[in-house]
């Protein structure tokens, strides 16, 4: 079965500290993976996607097929990074999208 697991409901770090939001997935094929973010009082929006190999707002995510993980990382957290982060999986060639339960990141001054 397709599943996305985000083990941490809440992650609290100090400004300037590194941050890693964990995401593990279960899927039999080769999925496409995404990170979506929801800032306070804003809509859910795409942060980055694996296929683009991009870095957005200093965040990167590496797909590790052996560990079936797609952890989100940033070397120096900023207060404006405080938000709800969702990892999502979309099956290859398809549209059905499975989201994790989300991790709330709180960056303290």
């Amino acid at each position: 079965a397709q599943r996305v697991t985000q083990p941490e409901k809440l992650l609290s770090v100090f400004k300037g500290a590194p941050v890693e939001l964990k995401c593990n997935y279960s899927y039999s094929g080769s999925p496409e993976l995404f990170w979506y973010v929801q800032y306070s009082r804003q809509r859910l929006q795409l942060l980055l996607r694996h296929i683009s190999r991009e870095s957005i707002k200093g965040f990167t995510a590496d797909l590790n097929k052996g560990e079936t993980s797609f952890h989100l990382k940033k070397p120096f957290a900023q207060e404006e990074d405080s938000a709800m982060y969702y990892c999502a999986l979309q099956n290859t060639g398809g549209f059905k999208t499975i989201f994790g339960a989300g991790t709330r990141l709180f960056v303290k001054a």
Partner: protein
Amino acid sequence: GAGVSQSPSNKVTEKGKDVELRCDPISGHTALYWYRQSLGQGLEFLIYFQGNSAPDKSGLPSDRFSAERTGGSVSTLTIQRTQQEDSAVYLCASSAGGVQETQYFGPGTRLLVL
């Protein structure tokens, strides 16, 4: 241009009543998705449309839930005989339609069933 819009923004209804939730996607977007977000939970996939057809309805929780899309644009999610467990935020998203395109989300409809 305008983003995805949803109406109503909030809906309070009594158990047993039917409700209709509306989604207006970004103009030209051929794919449209419905999700449900219950309190403290992640997004639960309900259904997606490619044009007016829904190839995958596997996420609909029960036969009380149905959705349609007309003219390749507006979509309506209907919940019949609402139950208290239907209380949630219902999110709509649209995308340009290619496989694995970015989804653009609406603000959601918060449904409360009393």
